């Protein structure tokens, strides 16, 4: 048998294992109707929860960012929602659409004769301030800092100059910001009269009683406004694959294939190159950066992964240019197992720090690996995701699927990990050694979720209870035993785990599915 990973060995200690998560469908946004053609621009390309878990953002290939907000927490829900919650036994996160905005537009780099796609590669949330939300979004080249805030709609009801006119119209209250003042010939002549003013006019000590300040009426209506606060551009020669904020709240990094740059959030016109793996001669290039992330609490540590399957941990304190890593996590290759595909499938597509900062999760084509930052020689756990595809690597290479970049995520407590797969499936694994919890879920809205899971099970679950079934999920060669067809076009690349609850948001093409347990 091919290795079933770290916890394949030995019978699991059933008694000490917590029950596996029971996944249920929660919500779907932008569900695809049968037969509906998916527009390329609508395909979701990034998902990110904010730190509190009260907000969720998605980015798509059309350069849009869509925000969702949680509705089931006290501050947000109306009384009706609260009553509803009383009925439901276990509360789970529910989100509603909040707003969306166009973050990036397609551009053309005239110097390099390159088209720059508007596709959002990554979104990161920044520190909330004054009830406004802040986030960073990036496409291949340009990072933007967005502020999204609720503004009360204000109406100007009284003016000095157009008072008569406004009364005459009888439409005072309805003239909002686009008030008749706009029509006054104030633009051109404004400078001159003011200039006169100070010389010609002497101000009486009590002022002029006839002058009035505009009266502004604030209505209860609010509108959400997204404003781009800063644009960080022209710092990457290659495509940006990740951005990550520092715990110090003032800096972030952006990584492309060969370099990692450090930015100050407030300074958009300069960045510092901290990692540069570009060889003097590009022909010597053997390895590229695939993903990078800051440590969740230590401001000086960051990890980046490479196409050769290694993760390097660097310490920004050591030197200004961090070309020398302080730790390198790499699994030793099993002797004799090398093939043409070894290097391709070793490439890490995503890394994530666990919230405790002690573990790093990495995703390569075949597996998820969990690393302890104190152990460089091998991962503490390996979860087989695509082992059943091993015989098909040739086909996957032919149709380029082997280069698909799957995200990975960890639960807030670090007890579970998840990652996507083909046929709109994603897999969730338990991290407790010896428990072998593994579940395969399909991103769909079937109200009878269990039935969706069942097709993936019967072949291996005839004789067993749920526990056994789930464990076998980790070992069995996949669902094609019944379905037999993998749909490589419906791949689930992007997903995110809620920071504090067992809830996963995942993107199937243009649809955002949410599940809870």
């Amino acid at each position, binding site marked *: 048998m091919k290795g079933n990973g770290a916890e394949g060995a030995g019978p699991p200690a059933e008694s000490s294992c917590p029950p596996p998560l029971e996944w249920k469908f929660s919500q779907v946004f932008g569900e695809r109707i049968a037969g509906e053609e998916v527009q390329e621009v609508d395909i979701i390309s990034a998902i990110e929860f904010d730190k509190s878990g009260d907000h969720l953002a998605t980015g798509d290939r059309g350069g849009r960012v869509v925000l969702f907000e949680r509705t089931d927490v006290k501050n947000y829900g109306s009384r009706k929602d609260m009553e509803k919650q009383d009925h439901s036994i276990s509360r789970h996160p529910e989100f509603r659409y909040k707003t969306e905005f166009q973050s990036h537009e397609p551009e053309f780099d005239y110097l390099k004769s390159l088209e720059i796609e508007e596709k959002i590669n990554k979104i990161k949330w920044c*520190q909330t*301030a*004054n009830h*406004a939300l*802040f986030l960073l979004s990036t496409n291949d080249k340009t990072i933007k800092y967005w*502020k999204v805030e609720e*503004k*009360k709609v204000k109406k*100007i009801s009284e*003016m*000095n*100059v*157009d*008072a*008569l*006119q406004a009364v005459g119209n009888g439409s005072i209250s309805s003239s909002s*910001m*686009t*008030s008749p*003042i*706009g029509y*006054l010939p*104030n*633009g051109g002549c*404004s400078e001159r*009269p*003011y200039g*006169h*003013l*100070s010389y*010609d*006019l002497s*101000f009486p*000590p*009590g*002022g*002029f009683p*006839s*002058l*009035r*300040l*505009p009266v*502004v009426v*604030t209505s209860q209506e609010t509108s959400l406004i997204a404003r781009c*606060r800063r644009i960080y551009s022209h710092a990457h020669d290659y495509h940006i694959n990740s951005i990550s904020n520092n*715990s*110090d*709240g*003032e*800096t972030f990094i952006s990584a492309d294939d060969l370099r990692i740059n450090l930015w100050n959030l*407030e300074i958009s016109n300069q960045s510092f190159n901290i990692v540069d793996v570009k060889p003097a001669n590009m022909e010597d290039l053997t390895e590229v950066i695939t993903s990078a992330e800051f440590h969740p*609490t*230590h*401001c*000086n540590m960051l990890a980046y992964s490479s196409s050769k399957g290694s993760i390097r941990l660097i310490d*920004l*304190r*050591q*030197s*200004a240019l961090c070309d020398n890593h302080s730790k390198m996590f790499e699994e030793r290759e099993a002797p004799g197992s090398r093939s043409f595909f070894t290097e391709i499938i070793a490439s890490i597509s995503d890394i994530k720090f666990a919230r405790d900062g002690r573990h790093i999760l990495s995703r390569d084509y075949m597996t998820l690996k969990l690393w302890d930052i104190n152990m460089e020689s091998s991962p503490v756990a390996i979860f087989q995701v695509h082992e059943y595809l091993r015989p098909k690597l040739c086909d996957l290479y032919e149709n380029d699927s082997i280069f698909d970049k799957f995200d990975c995520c960890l639960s807030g407590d670090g007890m579970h990990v998840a990652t996507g797969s083909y046929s709109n499936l994603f897999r969730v694994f338990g991290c407790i050694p010896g428990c072998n919890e593994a579940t395969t879920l399909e991103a769909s809205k079937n109200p009878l979720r269990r039935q969706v899971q069942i097709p993936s099970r019967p072949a291996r679950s005839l004789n067993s209870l749920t526990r056994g079934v789930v464990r076998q999920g980790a070992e069995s060669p996949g669902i094609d035993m019944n379905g037999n067809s993998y749909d490589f076009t419906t791949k689930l690349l992007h997903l995110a785990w809620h920071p504090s609850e067992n809830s996963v948001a995942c993107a199937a093409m243009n649809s955002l599915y949410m599940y809870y347990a």
Partner: protein
Amino acid sequence: MAMIDEPLYPIAILIDELKNEDIQLRLNSIRRLSTIARALGEERTRKELIPFLSENNDDDDEVLLAMAEELGVFVPYIGGVEYAHVLLPPLETLCIVEETCVRDKAVESLCRIGTQMKESDIVEWFIPLVKRLAGGEWFTARVSSCGLFHIAYPSATELFKAELRSMYGQLCQDDMPMVRRSAASNLGKFAATVEANNLKTDIMSIFEDLTRDDQDSVRLLAVEGCAALGKLLEPQDCVAHILPVIVNFSQDKSWRVRYMVANQLYELCEAVGPEPTCSDLVPAYVRLLRDNEAEVRIAAAGKVTKFCRILNPHLAIQHILPCVKELSSDSSQHVRSALASVIMGMAPVLGKDATIEELLPIFLSLLKDEFPDVRLNIISKLDQVNQQVIGIDLLSQSLLPAIVELAEDRHWRVRLAIIEYIPLLASQFGVGFFNDRLGALCMQWLEDKVFSIREAAANNLKRLAEEFGPEWAMQNIVPQLLEKISNPHYLHRMTILQSISLLAPVLGSESTCQKLLPVIITASKDRVPNIKFNVAKVLQSLIPIFDHSVVEQTVRPCLVELSEDPDVDVRYFASQAIQTCDSVMMSS
């Protein structure tokens, strides 16, 4: 419109435009807030305008920034200092916005107003404001509060003082690193207002917490606090409390913290006094000069002269000079460059003998550096070592090859940089040496293939003429210059014209008429139109220095001829110049 008198119309618009859709108009109105206030009168400004501004604080950042700035100088418009508290509410809301520059400006304005307020008003209005901000829900408020304590504290009662101190302590332990950074960077100002006994207890414990912060960004700001606090403490307390912190910082794990120390060490030495400097800080500085991180060495190397100035020469020679020697062959060109830019200043500190014995070899090796910036930095500071210490002769042997090499460097920016220093070199070397060695170079640059170099070369000639005087220029520059007017390349002929126009004012009317003018007139017959219209331009610029008779007899006929040129540009510039002729003639 019937309600507004005609003369008030502009100001009525100004007021209305406070709410215009166009940000430029709103900005304009805010900038004229004082005019609006005067038109409304003091009482209505207090009762209407200020509340209006407080409510309308969700504008664009530029408008808010302008508002924060205007309000800082608004005391006269609201009826004087006794009403100053009226201005606090709008500024308080501006202290909470998320744009840093707006908050900073609001804090600055609050400080400005606070310093004018009466003590009783501070207690009644300002201290509550500081407390509100310090306990604010959002970090932005707490960040702003840190910059206000030093205004509030001196007026506070004993009870309040204790409370303010403990609040500041809490801010230094805030969850948000942004707040801790603000607390760290404002600590010096706050500490300056705190009584000596509390300084030693409360403030020092706050400071020690900051120096142990997990975030590098907080610790590096604490470094700045070292110098500020050190100046407030008694020398013995400073040595007991600050010195160990500095020494620790100089060995911090983070290079950024060490970099800050390297940059600040000079001030820190002043704080602790000469004795501990010699015993503790010299070793710390030596460590920084030998730091692993090039950035730290750059910062340390850049301060080497300043540091040596506060030491006695003996210590400098014994401890610092060996490091300087190592740095002069450092692997990082930026370190060598930083060293080269200050090392000449060490000569007066060390005295003649030590300079010749120890520094001269370093100068010479830096002059041979492979990296042009290093050589340029040495050359640019030549005046610091010349005359009063060793004289140029000792250096000239090595200088000349270095200069020649830079003058012929393949990067035009390097050539440009050396040209800039030629007048300085000329003044140091003196006329004789210059004529022998450098004169030819200056002429050679006039024919450089890069325009910027030719332009700089022309300007250089002018500066040399100013340095050595018109007579020297007539003998040593003008003949060679005028020869080149027959250069087959028109761009080079243009450079000569440009040089002539620059030199003429220095040489004076007579020489210009005798030597330069004939050449210009000849050039007006050039076959290239660009030369011809440049002749027109040059003549135009020289009209003021010619006598009237020369203008009428020589310049004008030439211009008239050019004004009939087939080329449109030539005609245009010629007619421009003729106009100048006319106006000069008319005015006299």
